């Protein structure tokens, strides 16, 4: 340890010496409120290549929904207050400081002065006002709009002067300044006319010409080659610098290559076409690990992430006329003892071993161990027990026939299907294992793997399914992004989306607790509320939590300052600090 620290000491002296030479030169140029980062100092130049699973759908931060679009947009834009993906805490971004009133309803943000967009135009409070106007516009229907509506009222944005903005909330907001994360600030000078002419939703498509695009992010648009890549170049006006006063980002260019499958991404990374690889399976991790030394890259297992995979049953109000089979089987699914029995029979340890080669954590609740602040330590972790499963089924009126098959109280055999997405090998594998586990309880289970779009259609629209294995990823460690999963009226309340009234007493209770935690400012009190939510879910098992995969990433050895995080965008969150050795 001491040895390590000494090395660091030596490095920083060397760096300081360089800084002496560089600083005075830069000082004259920098009139703005640059943010100084505390990363180890690097050097500029070079090109970073990263693979994307698909082409981004849009470059418009207001409209982007899909992961790949957001990954690219993240490099092009900046927000007012940012969640540091490494520390999971908030830090100043375009706002250099902020203050909150005691009731937690008013935020006053001081913006950095002298900043310019990547096209050289100045940035001030008008851009902020304009941006929030767009995000809150009902006609534009931005996916972020819901998060900016607190207590049923859109937040009110007010310009105090050119560099001070005030936000007024209808209710106190527990997640506080995390609200501002990922709300990219737009250049008013480029977008206002499109907004006024109401063709905003067509602007900043993926094919936008570079001069028409400007942001406050570390990079700006250079070139888009359909079907191949999108290239970004350094934003010369970026507002961060390192300790030596070197303007970030360090690398000159980022190339996002479109590589459609995970296997192809792994192969291209191994062959040296790309520098960074994120989110791949444990199986591919083993493949990559073998050649780590020989090929000059490093793979890292960051431990449990924020994703949770789970099995759930169809609890929608389906009519016996349209879907008679599903309606009939819902008599089982709606019985909590049936769901508990299924949960008891699932071999979670087997899933961890076989599906994830040990690189995952078994789950009994939806908050993963990666989320250090919000997990409920009191949740029980019962081991697999067929006896418990059988006892629960028996108490719910099920019985077994002579051949060992399970029958309900009317004597009909218990047989249902589990839906999974055919493009997700892990979930299909889990389904096959659960099929085998439930056969031991006498249930006959079919695994049906469909293409992902078809799965979502069945879950959200037709409700024509019986059970399904899905995964959700929390974008932040805070419970707030989970609101639309747990509120009975939520879109992502998967087992029964958009309930007009809470269908069960416990769902009503969760609704109340989630609403209360949203306006409770004290962490300890809020944690107790969220713990209760987790306990109710564990008790009533609307979702049977299975496993949370570890976040696995890899980068070439020449990529320095590589500090992957378990929040998205896992490897590129500090893209401005990455440099090439």
């Amino acid at each position: 340890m001491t040895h390590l620290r000494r090395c660091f000491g030596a490095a920083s002296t060397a760096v300081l010496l360089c800084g002496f030479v560089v600083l005075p030169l830069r000082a004259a140029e920098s009139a703005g409120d640059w943010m100084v980062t505390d990363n180890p100092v690097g050097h500029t130049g070079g090109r970073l290549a990263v693979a994307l699973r698909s082409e981004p759908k849009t470059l418009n931060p207001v409209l982007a929904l899909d992961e790949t679009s957001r990954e690219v947009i993240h490099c092009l834009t900046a927000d007012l207050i940012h969640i540091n993906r490494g520390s999971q805490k908030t830090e100043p971004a375009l706002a250099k400081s902020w203050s909150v009133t005691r009731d937690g309803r008013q935020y006053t943000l001081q913006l950095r002065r002298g900043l310019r967009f990547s096209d050289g135009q100045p940035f001030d409070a008008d851009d902020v006002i304009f941006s929030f106007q767009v995000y809150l516009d009902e006609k534009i229907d931005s996916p972020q709009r819901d998060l900016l509506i607190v207590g049923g009222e859109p937040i009110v944005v007010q310009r105090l002067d050119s560099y001070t903005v005030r936000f007024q909330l209808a209710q106190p907001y527990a997640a506080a300044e995390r609200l501002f994360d990922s709300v990219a600030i737009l250049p008013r000078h480029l977008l206002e006319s499109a907004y006024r002419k109401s063709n905003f939703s067509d602007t900043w498509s993926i094919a936008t010409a570079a001069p028409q695009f400007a942001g406050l992010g570390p990079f700006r648009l250079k070139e888009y080659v359909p079907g191949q890549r999108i290239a970004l170049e350094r934003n010369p006006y970026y507002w961060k610098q390192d300790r030596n006063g070197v303007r970030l980002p360090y690398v000159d260019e980022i190339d996002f290559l479109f590589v459609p499958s995970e296997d192809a991404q792994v192969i291209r990374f191994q062959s040296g076409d790309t520098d960074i690889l994120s989110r791949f399976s444990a199986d591919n991790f083993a493949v990559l690990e073998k050649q780590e030394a020989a090929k000059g890259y490093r793979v890292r297992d960051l431990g449990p992430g924020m994703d949770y995979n789970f099995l759930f049953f169809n609890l929608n109000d389906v009519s016996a006329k349209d879907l008679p089979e599903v309606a009939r089987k819902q008599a089982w699914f709606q019985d909590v003892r049936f769901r508990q029995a299924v949960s008891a029979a699932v071999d979670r340890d087997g899933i961890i071993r076989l599906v994830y080669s040990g690189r995952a954590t078994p789950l009994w609740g939806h908050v993963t161990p990666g989320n250090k602040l919000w997990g409920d330590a009191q949740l029980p972790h019962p081991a697999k027990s067929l006896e418990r499963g059988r006892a629960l089924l028996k108490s719910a009126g099920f019985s077994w026939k002579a051949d060992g098959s399970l029958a309900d109280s009317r004597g009909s055999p218990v047989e249902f299907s589990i839906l999974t997405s055919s493009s997700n090998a892990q979930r299909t594998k889990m389904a096959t294992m659960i099929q085998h586990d439930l056969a031991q309880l006498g249930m006959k289970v079919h695994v049906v793997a469909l293409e992902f779009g078809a799965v979502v259609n069945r879950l959200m629209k037709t409700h024509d399914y019986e059970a399904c294995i899905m995964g959700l990823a929390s974008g932040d460690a805070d419970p707030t992004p989970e609101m639309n999963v747990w509120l009975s009226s939520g879109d992502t309340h998967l087992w029964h989306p958009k309930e007009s009234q809470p269908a069960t007493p416990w769902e009503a209770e969760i609704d109340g607790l989630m609403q209360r935690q949203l306006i409770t400012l004290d962490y300890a009190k809020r944690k107790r509320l969220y713990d209760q939510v987790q306990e109710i879910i564990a008790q009533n098992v609307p979702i049977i939590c299975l496993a949370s995969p570890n976040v696995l990433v890899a980068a070439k050895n020449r990529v320095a300052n590589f500090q992957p995080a378990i929040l998205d965008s896992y490897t590129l969150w500090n893209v401005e600090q990455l440099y090439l050795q």
Partner: protein
Amino acid sequence: MTARRKLQIALLALGCFHGFVLFAGFFAPYDFSAQNREHPFAPPTRLHFVDAQRKFHLRPFVYGGAGNASDGAGIYPMHFLVRGAPYQIIGFFPARLRLFGVEEPGRVFLIGTDGYGRDQFSRFLYGGQISLLAGLLAAILSVSLGAVIGALAGFYGGWVDEALMRAVEFFLASPWLYLLFAVRAALPLHVAEWQIFILLVSVLGLLGWARPARLVRGIVLSAKERHFVIAARGFGATDTHILLRHVLPQTYGVLLTQVALLIPHYVLAEVTLSFLGLGVGEPVPSWGSLLSQLQQYFILTSYWWMFMPALLLVPLFLAYYAAADAFQEHFQQVAL
């Protein structure tokens, strides 16, 4: 070698292969769905004759664990004609007799296990039941349809020919993949295994008739101009008689050859159908699902024994092609 002899050898090889598959329960040591979660991706179990003390055993044995640990793990001799997990002969007669096996907790995985620790050898044999039967039935369906349509088109010519041949072109040019998506969406979620099987046969069979139809049409076109056909017509034979008696027999060689070529083709086509959710579902194995595992990079690079099912298919497919070849030669000789 005469064509007849070649045909005999090819048919004998095919007969053996089909026998193995038909009586999969007897030849396979385990049930196809039995998971050994302690042994995912276990390499093939080595059969030993000499133990650590250099003692020779007349009866081959395996070591305990996944069968590969020789560090003092127990020795489990292989027994023949043992009582194993229950199965049904040809789907009807319950039986427990299996050709070979080792005592629990010993395990014998002749070609390793898959990601769930299921015996690949057993899965291969059972998988053939669905794949071969589906391939065979679908090929017969395709070829019969093709024969009827091709014969009608060739024999009657004129607008019948035009209409049928445009239909063939339409069939060859249509993007069937998207139709299959629609078919899957229209089906209920869990379809019984026999329904899936019928679906598999009909999809493969109905989509494949166009090429045999073209071939048959060509032969019929030339056959109907031959002297004995014209003579028969001169004697007042009806169309049906001429078609069944004189023209269609000319196409038998081509048809049999087509069947022998189409079966391996259809076995592979099932890989795609499995991916669209139209194949047989887990845990029931098929050759398509065994092969589709190889689409994953980590399996390709890390577990060589996962190629074994593919390798085992090579002699089978060769036998089919040899049979196709021999049929062709045989019928040519007959025709001469």
